[in-house]
């Protein structure tokens, strides 16, 4: 299934994420909102300096999209966006019978959640120390996300 | 659009693309777009001992914004044609 980066980002609203800027600073926080320029609004933010040796806590911040290098979002967000997309592809909004989530009829369609993907990380506590079954065997590590914390 | 058209005519030829991180990649020009993003096939990095980072990559997309030079095949420039096209572009017609 093909996804647009900005759709994924939109779906990540309310989730914790890590943002690295081009200047090397990282921002850990919960996504409040974003726009089509990738400008983002975070809450409950911890900013980490480029070298990972200094920290600032702030209640919220706005980041201009073009200063971003990458965003790390919780794994389960991609399942969420795929479900939403599958649902809207099946039923274009405003067409036919009532809107909202119909009952899963079991036949066809994906199961409700998390096919092949664990939910062990819960996603509540930032992005530190995550990992995934499929990735076991690879050395762990947490560039950016884990630096200087914990 | 001149360079876009020009590169489109070079599709299928062997070129070497030198990037702004000093990496040079040689391969067959597969396609190009209006941003001068380039797709190469059968790629190999020119100095593989120094840059083994792409050893398992045979086809790649190179973002136009990071290209420093494209080395062309020796017979890849029809100077008369390019002169004409340049004049036309300058005139804006």
């Amino acid at each position: 299934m093909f996804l647009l980066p900005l759709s994924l980002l939109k779906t990540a609203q309310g989730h914790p994420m890590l943002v690295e800027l081009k200047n090397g600073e990282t921002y850990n926080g919960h996504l409040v909102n974003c726009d089509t320029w990738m400008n983002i609004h975070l809450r409950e933010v911890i900013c980490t300096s480029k070298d990972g040796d200094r920290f600032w806590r702030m209640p919220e911040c706005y980041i201009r999209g073009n200063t971003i290098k990458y965003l790390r979002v919780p794994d389960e967000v991609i399942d969420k966006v795929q479900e939403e997309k599958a649902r809207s592809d099946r039923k274009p909004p405003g067409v036919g019978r009532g809107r909202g989530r119909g009952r899963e009829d079991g036949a066809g369609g994906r199961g409700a959640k998390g096919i092949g993907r664990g939910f062990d990380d819960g996603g509540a506590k930032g992005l530190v120390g995550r990992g995934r079954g499929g990735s076991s065997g690879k050395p762990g590590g947490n560039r950016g996300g884990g630096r200087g914390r914990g | 659009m001149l360079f876009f058209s020009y590169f489109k005519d070079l599709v299928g030829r062997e070129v070497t693309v030198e990037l702004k991180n000093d990496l040079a990649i040689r391969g067959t020009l597969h396609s190009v777009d209006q941003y001068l993003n380039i797709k190469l096939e059968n790629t190999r990095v020119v100095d593989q001992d120094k840059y083994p980072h792409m050893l398992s990559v045979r086809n790649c997309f190179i973002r136009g914004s990071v290209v420093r030079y494209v080395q062309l095949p020796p017979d890849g420039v029809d100077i008369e044609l390019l002169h004409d096209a340049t004049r036309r572009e300058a005139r804006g017609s």
Partner: protein
Amino acid sequence: MSGPGLESLVDQTISVITNDGRNIVGILKGFDQATNIILDESHERVYSTKEGVQLLVLGLYIIRGDNISIVGELDEELDSHLDLSSLRAHPLKPVIH
């Protein structure tokens, strides 16, 4: 326009070189006009001259297009024969515009 889009690489394993010289490998889940990309199940390959290539698990990433240099199609066959633990190299230089 039929340019060098990334359509053909969706759901495949790709190797991305970023402008700051990192090498990130993952499954391409999507992209847009600006070459922003979604990488799933990604990991970074960290090159050094002192030891073999280190792998760092990264997970789900959105990489901004203006931070991307190369998107390479990872040939799984070639990659499986690569002995990363014995590969030594300097990290790639960052792109200087």
